[in-house]
């Protein structure tokens, strides 16, 4: 049997937060929450696990560092070593101090950009992407919860009303 999704709109983040808690205690499954700004403690209340995007960034950073080291070792030491101001181009170790700035920059470059790209990909953000918030007000000052339930929609609506929802409608 099909389950219906209820969209409840709140106009205050604290009310939203308490409502979420009540829904959770009543074992309702919260599909999605749309908010105009990050409401602190909400993800805990909804109970979604933390993001691992920071870890990817760390890995990207390592890649960047490795690339930097390889690049400079190949160009300055292996492929075309030159006597530049007497600097020891015959040994990476000895010439390394001159390479530190680039190593750092490339590490940051890779870490930052690849992470942001990952974020955009995972959250499906790119030009010409259609916005998916059901109600335009959710980017202004309203908050929306999507709760799905298999049976008695009524009691859910009551619960939402009780917990301070301003509007309630069923998702088409």
């Amino acid at each position, binding site marked *: 049997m099909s389950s219906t999704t209820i969209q409840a709109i709140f106009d205050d983040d604290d009310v939203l937060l308490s409502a979420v808690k009540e829904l959770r205690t009543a074992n309702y499954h919260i599909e999605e929450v749309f908010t105009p700004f*990050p409401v*602190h403690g*909400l993800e805990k209340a909804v109970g*979604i696990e933390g993001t691992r995007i920071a870890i990817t960034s760390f890995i990207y950073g390592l890649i960047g560092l490795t690339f930097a080291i390889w690049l400079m070792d190949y160009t300055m030491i292996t492929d075309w070593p030159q006597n530049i101001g007497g600097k020891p181009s015959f040994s990476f170790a000895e010439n390394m101090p001159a390479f530190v700035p*680039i190593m750092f920059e490339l590490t940051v470059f890779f870490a930052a950009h690849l992470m942001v790209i990952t974020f955009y990909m995972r959250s499906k*953000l790119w030009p010409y992407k259609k916005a998916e918030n059901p109600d335009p007000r959710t*980017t*202004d000052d309203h908050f929306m919860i999507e709760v799905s339930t298999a049976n008695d929609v009524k009691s859910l609506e009551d619960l939402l009303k009780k917990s301070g929802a301003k509007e309630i409608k069923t998702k088409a």
Partner: protein
Amino acid sequence: MSHYEAPIREPLIFGDKSYHDISVDVAAPVEGKANKLWWIAFSIALTAFLLGIGAICYTIGVGIGVWGLNNRINWAWDITNFVWWVGIGHAGTLISAVLLLFRQKWRMGINRSAEAMTIFAVFQAGLFPIIHMGRVWNAFYVLPLPNALGSLWVNFNSPLLWDVFAISTYLSVSLVFWYTGLLPDFAMLRDRAVKPFQKKIYGLLSFGWSGRLKDWQRFEEVSLVLAGLATPLVLSVHTIVSMDFATSIIPGWHSTIFPPYFVAGAIFSGFAMVQTLLIIMRKVSHLEAYITKIHIENMNKVIIVTGGIVSVAYMTEFFVGWYSGSSYEDYTYLSVGAATGPYWWAFWSLITCNFIFPLTLWFKKARTSLIWSFILSIIINIGMWFERFDIIVIDLSRGHLPSSWTMFSPTFVDVSIFIGTIGFFFVLFLLYARTFPVIAQAELKSILKSSGENYKNLRKENHE
């Protein structure tokens, strides 16, 4: 209650503001019409910009000889302007990154514009290393590609190449940092927009941001990590720029304290520029409620600190040069020779603008006066320009061999290009002020309840 904040902290948002009011106020300049003032400012900036373009074309067409340089002083206004703009370009990322790490809520009122300022400033900065080349058309040689003329690579020992990497990394990272922060606000504008054109544009710009819970979670994580990455980056950029001088062997350039001293100087000038812009913008765009005296004062405090560091650096340089007893240090940009020599005027403008005037900020009255903050911010930027001019021109004009001593005076081309970059900067900033959400409203909403004036008052009443 989660929104509790010590009542002694002064509110960061004035007036009886609701979430919706914030949206309205932020969207106002975008949705409203440009006033006369804006058009005047814009047309002036545009003319300056065109003048600059003309001068640059002339330079590239005829040769660097149209500048005032010579075979002893091979850099002057070009690199001075470069360092000056890069320095200015430090405040933004610093505010949004470092202050984010320190959980400084007051940053939220100003970080958006500060970052915009940063990016536009770095555009100007990036221009100079390119056009100062004798053969611009070969500028791509600085990229680590195997040279078309044989397998010759770039020279990773060169501070100039470090610059290439540092500046490009800094610019691009600041850009994505800034843009990611903009997404929710673009989304807000998109959803408010009534004109189909605006809706389309902001829909495009917002990358279809919907404000899902998971998105917000990632958003905050990404902001945090970017802040963590950007902080050392900010410090690294001017460190590396300073190495252009510090790693050389010219008396006055060859100085180990340059990196920290340059970074401090950069923040010094950066905050000054933020002051200049925001004090105007809060008036013009009616954002007094969000960019408050507290913001101005806090920035002034940062200026005191960094200005102090810079002054100490000056004294150190002066002392060490004198104490070394080496005759080669007699004419470095901070020395008796410079103070009494042909460039005395440059030396003393530096001292007055960067050391003497900022001292006034130790008085709260001056610190909280908008007018004075505004005037001072301009004085400081003049002073910081002179700092770079002194370092480059005075030091080069008095090198190791007295036989090679000479002087520099700019041509109209030098001046036009500098004016042009200022024009370009303001063209960008004015356009930004009309079309972008100039305040990070999403973030601001999240602190409304903790730091909003009305809510603070409410809490007071509840206490009694």
